């Protein structure tokens, strides 16, 4: 299935892209993160264990066990600093 993945702020800059379409075989946030980490280099570094970032599925914060289905919009971003 295909999903849309968005990156914001520092992660958008580190990854050098604001969004991409990804073909995912297993439908969880954890599976997506594993796929991204397996790209190595900056991906493995920024999304590695202990790194502080958030994931939202269809604009709602989610953890690694959250399901993903075709057409979902997944966003990965650093802790927020607005206000």
């Amino acid at each position: 299935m295909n999903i849309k993945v968005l990156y914001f702020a520092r992660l958008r800059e580190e990854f050098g892209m604001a969004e991409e379409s990804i073909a995912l075989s297993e439908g969880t946030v954890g599976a997506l993160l594993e796929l991204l980490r397996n790209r190595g280099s900056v991906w493995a570094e920024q999304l590695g264990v202990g790194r502080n970032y958030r994931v939202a599925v269809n604009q709602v914060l989610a953890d690694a066990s959250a399901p993903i289905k075709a057409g979902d919009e997944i966003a990965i971003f650093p802790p927020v600093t607005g206000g």
Partner: protein
Amino acid sequence: MKITVQETDFDAATEISELCANNSRIGAIASFIGLVRDNSDGDPVTAMTLEHYPAMSARVLRDIVEQAMQRWQIGDVTVIHRTGKLALCDQIVFVAVAAAHRHDAFLACEFIMDFLKTAAPFWKKEQTAQGERWVEPRATDEDARRSWLDSSDISAR
């Protein structure tokens, strides 16, 4: 409820007038304005850029205001958050809460800001003499958010 994310500036007096227009039940309005400060962690700051997640930011602000409305006796609420390039002293964020009594207005206004700072998807990038840098989240902001959750008597807080 008015929730707006915009690049343009806002006028607090106009917003407050609109909040209480023709509503004689309102006895109190508490408001907060966040501004671009000229220093951060001891370093001079010359300007700031604010990024957000457009599909999510207004939605999270609305959720936060709805939580405040369930928790306190408040009437209407206005939240405005700016994005884009901002200069020193520029207004960043505006929260105003109208209520029958001041206690509810003060508490709801602080609650909304504490959750906005820690949950709404906005990110600040500061310009300093050393170049640009993304602002790091502050532990004190997270402590402030958590203090509302820890309150055993939520109506007393």
